[in-house]
């Protein structure tokens, strides 16, 4: 067992110190003191004091490193922490070497270990006498040497100041500060040609040749998926291939055409919503629907399609309501601030829930716009970056008057408000819940009578209470029953009697006579009614939004919140303080609204501390052209969306621990150019896509040299292929079959998802949510994936296995891992089989011969014609399958009108079952069924299934 550094013989130490001091020369003393001030104490602060001194009550192993005396005293090991002059006998030194058998390696985390240089400092310091000058002397030394040291050690950064002077004065390596430097537009290293290519050429590995440019078919497929998330139509491919203009000119036209497509906005919105964590539900225990979140999603689509200036886009999302509270568009835009998962149930402490919102919104703003994960400064000053915790709370103060509400916002003429008639299915469900509750009420009333009879108690008083409640004149309308919209005589009477002070054994217990089924059904119905209030928001002119105002107390939030008329006067005006350790109950120093102090130079408008106006002033700072984080962050994202790798490796983290830009000049040139071009996304796409770097092929002529010269794959000598995202995969199948309904926007759609997942009972706080019922009509279901209802607690399994990100964290870039469940979904799943059948049917209709049908399938799926070999292989397969099918019968599948659920009831711990009617299925029109087509077509569907599962379909080159 290794020992931990522990106590000391104080006497021995004191003598030791005296001895060393008396023998050391003055010059050596000064050097040793300098070492302490310059290296040792900052190192202790960085690596040791968090556990060995910061919190007096919780000093690890009893070893206190706040003074030489306490270190000499040691900790639980009862040995001195160091022996002055003798590093090899000093536990402190031995522990940081991590090599000594007796002493546990320190700091404990492997990742935190000291560098060889830092270990040497400790050694030299102990050997040199372990000098520990007092504060005054330390300051004097620091002052005298500051110029010399900063030239050698790195740079100071001016901020609003940390919790300790050591943090405030610490030095930074300049390479870690690249993101805070002003963007200066570099001059491209070559005058002619595309500037991007010039910057890439400037860092080109010597002796490496580039891949040839991609052929036109490859290129149009790449560009079309990149800009609209769909495959090119066969006619579009043909037109481009036949275009007699030069490759560059013809391709520029393709890019222009795609940028004009309304689907461009959908594709870009998907990227943006990945970052902002879009979902149609609120997560956690209840996972209530956010009925009007879709309006924010469509706002994003619209904004991209209109090529809205990015600075404006930023301002609207942070402070739309403060820009123009009368413009519904601006209210809708603030939905961004609501994207994080959030709820307040009766099980949670209100202040904690409020703080969760504030922490979430601050971090989200940081990651999304500033490429800074600000949560690292929530509990302490940032460990690596010049972000003091004070800044974190100053930014939080910007949002201290931001309140959550579903605000009135009339529908705009450019919003898709069709399909609202589906509301009838929700109303049918509502009626059913009411019926269940009325039945249970009747049942309890009857059971109550039996109860009185059994107990031999006179029910007169009870009956009077019932009569009163039935008349509606009962004084018993407790807050609980008044919010209920269902027949609830039993509880009304019971509450009335309780209020009268009748002893509890004189009237029936609650839920009297309930069977386990009754308990279960009652909860399902009651929670179901509550959930419907959120779902019904979809069709109402409200927006998932915020308002400026005082903070009011809510015990729970179980129904959409509206903006109160007394928002400026009622409630608490929050005062933001630094929260010690991030704990909402440990308020420290007060702060005022502010920005990241390291970039205060970009702030032109001071942030007021009035209730309204804080966010707008803050947004002006974010969206200021002089804010280097904002402009670099967005062009870095656009680059990632085209090249499958960002220039700076962590698009959500430009701090010193994030990956440095591979082409910093290029990044700055793009950022500056973006601003010059009016913050235009479309202009940026043109610049990037018309470069040779973008148009290069994915096949390198000399892979060996490529691997040698470009081991990190950042030369752009070859284009990087990518797997389609989950959404593209589904949309591309629908596009190929011709089933895709290209309508833009509107209330969320519900495609068919795996039926078992759709109907699996889903827990929501004490009971179960209704199942997933698809839209009745194929054209409603076959909308683009971005419009599919996104339920945090019930992701579409097909989307999930293909790495659609969970919306709890911001997704800076998509993963594309290959795991076996993908095969199950894509090869076995009903959706793939349905699409394959639809593609076969389309190919049959659009072709005269079998050969043409195969060729058509290839053109629709792969944007090319089959080779002779492929054609023959597919024809043979078709015949084989048809032979297999000839003796099998097909049966049309019937939609389930009702589902039976089994669960364990919370009140009883017993199993119970309940039936749920799936109303929308009554009007269900299935997709094309095997029974609808000939055996010949069905057999072709197997060829089509293979096409959809092939590598060529799922990768874009």
């Amino acid at each position, binding site marked *: 067992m290794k020992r931990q550094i522990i106590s000391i013989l104080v006497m021995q130490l004191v003598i030791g110190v005296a001895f060393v001091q008396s023998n050391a020369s003055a010059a050596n003393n000064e050097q040793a003191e300098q070492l302490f001030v310059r290296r040792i104490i900052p190192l202790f602060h960085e690596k040791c004091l968090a556990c060995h001194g910061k919190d007096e009550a919780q000093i690890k192993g009893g070893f206190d490193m706040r003074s030489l005396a306490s270190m000499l005293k040691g900790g639980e090991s009862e040995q001195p922490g160091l022996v002055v002059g003798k590093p090899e006998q000093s536990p402190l030194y031995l522990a940081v070497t991590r090599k000594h058998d007796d002493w546990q390696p320190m700091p404990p985390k492997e990742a935190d270990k000291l560098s060889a240089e830092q270990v040497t400092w400790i050694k030299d310091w102990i050997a040199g006498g372990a000098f520990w000058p007092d504060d005054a002397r330390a300051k004097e030394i620091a002052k005298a040497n500051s110029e010399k040291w900063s030239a050698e050690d790195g740079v100071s950064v001016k901020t609003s100041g940390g919790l300790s002077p050591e943090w405030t004065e610490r030095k930074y390596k300049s390479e870690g500060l690249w993101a805070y430097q002003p963007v200066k537009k570099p001059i491209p290293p070559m005058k002619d040609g595309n500037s991007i290519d010039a910057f890439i050429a400037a860092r080109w590995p010597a002796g490496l040749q580039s891949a040839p440019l991609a052929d036109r078919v490859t290129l149009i497929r790449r560009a079309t998926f990149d800009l609209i998330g769909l495959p090119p139509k066969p006619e579009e491919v043909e037109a481009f291939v036949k275009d007699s203009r030069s490759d560059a000119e013809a391709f520029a036209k393709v890019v222009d055409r795609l940028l004009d497509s309304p689907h461009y906005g959908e594709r870009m919105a998907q990227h943006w919503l990945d970052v902002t964590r879009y979902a149609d539900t609120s997560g956690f225990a209840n996972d209530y629907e956010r009925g009007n979140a879709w309006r924010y999603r469509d706002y994003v689509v619209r904004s991209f399609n209109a090529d809205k200036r990015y600075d404006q886009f930023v301002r609207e999302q942070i402070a739309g309501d403060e820009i123009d509270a009368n413009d519904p568009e601006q209210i809708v835009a603030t939905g961004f601030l609501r994207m994080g998962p959030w709820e307040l149930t009766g*099980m949670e402490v209100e202040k904690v829930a409020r703080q969760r919102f504030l922490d979430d919104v601050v971090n989200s703003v940081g990651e999304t716009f500033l490429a800074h994960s600000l949560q690292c400064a929530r509990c302490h000053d940032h460990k690596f970056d010049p972000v003091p915790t004070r800044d974190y709370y100053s930014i939080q103060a910007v949002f201290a008057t931001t309140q959550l509400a579903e605000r009135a916002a009339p529908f705009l003429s450019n919003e898709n408000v069709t399909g609202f008639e589906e509301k009838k299915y929700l109303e049918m469900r509502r009626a059913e819940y009411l019926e269940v509750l009325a039945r249970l009420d009747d049942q309890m009333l009857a059971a109550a009578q039996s109860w009185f009879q059994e107990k031999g108690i006179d029910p007169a008083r009870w009956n009077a209470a019932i009569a009163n409640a039935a008349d509606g004149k009962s004084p018993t309308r407790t807050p609980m029953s008044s919010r209920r919209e269902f027949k609830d005589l039993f509880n009304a009477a019971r509450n009335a009697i309780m209020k009268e002070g009748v002893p509890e054994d004189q009237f029936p*217990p609650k*839920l009297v006579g309930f069977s386990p089924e009754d308990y279960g059904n009652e909860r399902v119905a009651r929670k179901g009614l509550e959930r419907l209030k959120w779902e019904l928001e979809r069709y109402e002119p409200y927006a998932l939004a915020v308002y400026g105002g005082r903070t009011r107390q809510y015990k729970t939030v179980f129904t959409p919140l509206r903006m109160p008329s007394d928002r400026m006067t009622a409630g608490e005006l929050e005062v933001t303080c630094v929260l010690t350790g991030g704990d909402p109950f440990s308020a420290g120093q007060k702060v005022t609204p502010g920005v990241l102090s390291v970039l205060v130079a970009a702030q032109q408008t001071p942030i007021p501390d009035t209730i309204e106006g804080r966010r707008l002033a803050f947004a002006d700072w974010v969206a200021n052209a002089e804010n280097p984080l904002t402009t670099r962050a967005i062009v870095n994202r656009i680059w990632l969306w085209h090249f499958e790798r960002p220039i700076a490796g962590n698009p959500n983290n430009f701090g010193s621990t994030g990956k440095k830009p591979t082409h910093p000049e290029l990044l700055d040139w793009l950022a500056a150019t973006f601003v010059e071009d009016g913050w235009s996304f479309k202009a940026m796409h043109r610049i990037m896509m018309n470069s040779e770097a973008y148009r290069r092929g994915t*096949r390198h002529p000399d892979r060996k040299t490529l691997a040698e010269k470009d081991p990190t794959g*950042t030369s752009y000598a070859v284009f990087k292929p990518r797997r389609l995202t989950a959404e593209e995969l589904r949309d591309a199948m629908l596009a190929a079959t011709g089933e895709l309904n290209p309508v833009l926007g509107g209330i969320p759609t519900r495609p068919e998802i795996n039926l078992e997942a759709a109907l*699996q009972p889903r827990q929501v706080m004490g009971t179960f949510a209704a199942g997933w019922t698809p839209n009745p009509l194929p054209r409603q279901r076959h909308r683009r994936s971005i419009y599919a209802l996104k339920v945090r607690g019930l992701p579409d399994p097909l989307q999930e296995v293909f790495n659609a990100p969970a919306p709890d964290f911001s997704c800076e870039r998509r*993963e594309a891992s290959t795991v076996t469940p993908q095969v199950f979904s894509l090869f076995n799943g009903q959706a793939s089989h349905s699409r394959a059948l639809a593609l076969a049917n389309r190919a049959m209709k659009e072709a005269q011969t079998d050969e043409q049908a195969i060729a058509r399938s290839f053109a629709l799926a792969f944007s090319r014609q089959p080779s002779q*070999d492929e054609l023959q292989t597919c024809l043979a397969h078709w015949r084989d399958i048809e032979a297999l099918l000839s003796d099998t019968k097909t049966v049309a599948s019937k939609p389930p009108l009702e589902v039976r659920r089994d669960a364990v009831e919370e009140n009883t711990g017993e199993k119970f079952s309940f039936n749920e009617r799936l109303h929308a299925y009554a009007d269900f029109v299935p997709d094309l069924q095997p029974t609808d087509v000939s055996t010949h077509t069905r057999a072709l569907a197997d060829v089509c299934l293979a096409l959809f599962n092939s590598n060529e379909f799922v990768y874009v080159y």
Partner: protein
Amino acid sequence: MSTNRFFPGADVRDLHGPTRREFIYSLGASLGSVALSALLADEAKTNPLTPKQQHLPAKAKSVIFLTMEGSPSHLDTFDPKPKLAEMHLKEFVREGKQKSAMESGKRYYVQSPFKFAKHGQSGADMAQNWEHLAKVADEICFFRGCTVDSVNHPTAMYQMNCGNRFGGDPGIGAWVNYGLGTVNQDLPGFIVLPEVSYPQGGAANWSNGYLPANFQGTPLRAKGSPILDLTPPVGVSAARQRKNLDLIAKLNAAHVAQHPGHDELAARMDNYELAFRMQMQVPEVLDLSKEDEKTKELYGVGKDATDAFGRKCLLARKLVEKGVRFVQLYNGSWDSHDYIERAHGNLVRGVDQPIAALITDLKQRGLLDSTLIVWCGEFGRTPDNGVRGGTAYGRDHNPNAMTIWLAGGGCNAGHTIGATDELGMQAVEGKAHVRDFHVTLLRLLGLDDNKLTYYHAGRFKQLSQFGGTVIKELIG
């Protein structure tokens, strides 16, 4: 292999895209095959799922994690408080700022409806309705000192399972597989046996989080197809499916020839073959019919009350025997705000015999030493209740006291560690945050939480979030 286990941040994976090898391993992780293991044997050194050395010597090699979702009451199971009988229905006033709406209104102390007795040589306290578990009391190490941060289910659930209250981080099973690899490349290293309905917070409770997808928990669903779309739609015969697979292979072969250097293609092709074989293998693994009748009877399989959880426990033993590293079982809901006598009574009846059988069975097979069993909820419960509506006594959520117990795996069996105050409101002795419990759990598996880190979003992350302390008393 480009991922360094301890310094993955130094890798260049995301710049290159995963190599073919990594892809193949992912398949192994998600359910692999014997053929695959053979294929990989010579590359064992670089396979992230290859069994790895423990950081420190330890007995436990695998874990069966019994999650009692909704949180059992420590006061009505393993932590008796006779004082509550004296206080029964006396009014209780909550102090402090951490008050939720759940705690509003008049509140009363509530005594436990269950009688307690001491069992085994160790004299472990157990409510009398744990009839079967009482017989193996000396195999158990009870821990009464654990505290958590949350009072609501989903966040507490995430904290117990992933260390972080807001979800999205890797589950314990993912960490354990990341640290130890898996000895059976044919099965996922982290298998979850959920209830028909997933727990609050859903699949995020067993996610791989920021770890590679290889380490994700694979739920075997309790009803219907164990894995979604494991088999093709009705009417697609195996012969037809085989032919379709062959066509895909042919199309892919032509394609891969045109795209040399795109390593992902081959991995994706292999994946289809694996999936095809798995369609047969998974039902075999789940088939309990070959177990002898005595064993099934031991677990309570076939008896109405115990059948469901008995099957899960028996399957868990089978999976551990086959080398699965981490099996998590869900049971519940134990969220008995009301009617605790009836609800807890039924729930205990459902799990008592199966859990006791699991301990007994593992022991007689010589597997108990190498298998750590954990039993816990996400928090404890309060000694007081709002007594909403009269006599339907129950208990509310309590993050300050709970009982977790361990069995096997080198735990300190036959001891009760830590204590709560005389009303069971707060842990007072041996008090430790759940992060310390996590660190201890890893330590029992020979893993050092401070070494088991992964670079993500600019910092090295670990299960305990910021590090913790081993609770030595829990280790035998």
